[in-house]
């Protein structure tokens, strides 16, 4: 990763049951800043997953830009047959362009608990 020094920041979210991958992504450039993968998981996928997360958030930002309802994106959850794909902007600042992406095993993850952990993690980073 581009910032190995930041990888350890992701340690709290690895406690999510079924955790597979966690990434911090710069939404403005699509660059994966830091990542942590489950050691027993699949081959490295942070570059692809991070790029996909940045693309999803960009499309949603374009949508909110044209709807112009004054709202801001809070989180995105995508459910695949075998996994959850969760994205949340880090911090409360409108100018924050950093995203947290979590991929987790659908069979082993309590989605409500995972959301709580992600929300608390993002809030703690943003405090």
């Amino acid at each position, binding site marked *: 990763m581009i910032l190995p020094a930041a990888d350890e920041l992701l340690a709290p979210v690895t406690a999510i049951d079924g955790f597979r991958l966690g990434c911090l992504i*710069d939404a403005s450039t699509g660059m994966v800043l*830091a990542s942590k993968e489950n050691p027993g998981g699949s081959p490295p996928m942070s*570059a692809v997953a991070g790029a996909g997360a940045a693309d999803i958030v960009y499309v949603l930002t374009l949508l909110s830009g044209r709807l*112009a309802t004054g709202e801001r994106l809070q989180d995105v959850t995508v459910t695949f047959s075998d996994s959850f794909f969760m994205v949340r902007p880090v911090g409360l600042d*409108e100018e924050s362009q950093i995203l947290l992406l979590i991929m987790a095993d659908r069979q082993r993850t309590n989605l409500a608990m995972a959301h709580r952990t992600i929300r608390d993690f993002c809030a*703690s980073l*943003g405090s």
Partner: protein
Amino acid sequence: MSRIRRRPRVLAGSVWPGREVDGYANLIAARLRKLAAAGSTGLLPVSGPAEGAIILRGGSVVHAESSRTSPQRTGDPAALGLALRGSVGVVAGLLAATEPTIDAATELLSSKSRYARFRRSDVSLAVQPPSIPVTALLTEVERRHQVLSQLAVIVTADTAVIRTRSLAWPRLQVSAPQWALVVGMADGMTPRGVAMKLGRSVFATTIEVYRLIELGLLAVPGRESPPADGRSTALAFLRAVHNERCTDG
């Protein structure tokens, strides 16, 4: 920092004539890999469309600067103080400290750049920057080149852009950084020009200008319809990663 900015330009004057990169075999990337493997410390001057230098410490890149990108703002609290806080400031601070380096490297590792003799000496920097592994930097630069190649159908860092006079939508919502970009963009300015003016990343600004063109707030004069050659005009970071893997494979 001003001392650092002057030095590469002087050194770049002594570039070896035979060290041209043809885009097929990227000699600068190969040179950086060798320097990384040797755990080198020093400065690699680069000249070409952009003049500058890449500074290594213990085989990792700690700094890069280019005459065609914004310099690091050494007094910027986001780049300095925030990195010390136990908050999102850690990540934002690291990002603010590394983005100018990656932005400069993206310019320096262009297909027409050349490198000069590596100067083996530790270069003093005004701040202690985070180090970036050479492999990670080269992967990121390649990804950025792929993204810029996608964007080139609509806008490049050097395309003159204007603010649109009438909006196609009754209302639009933009973020504060986007609005600052629209306000700072005088007619005929390029993404590079406004990035240098605002002290932002040229790469990130080019992407943001593309997004503002998509929203209809900015436009490229004389270009009103998508290109007719069938090339996709949509930006997709995912496609840049895919292309990179195909190239490697």
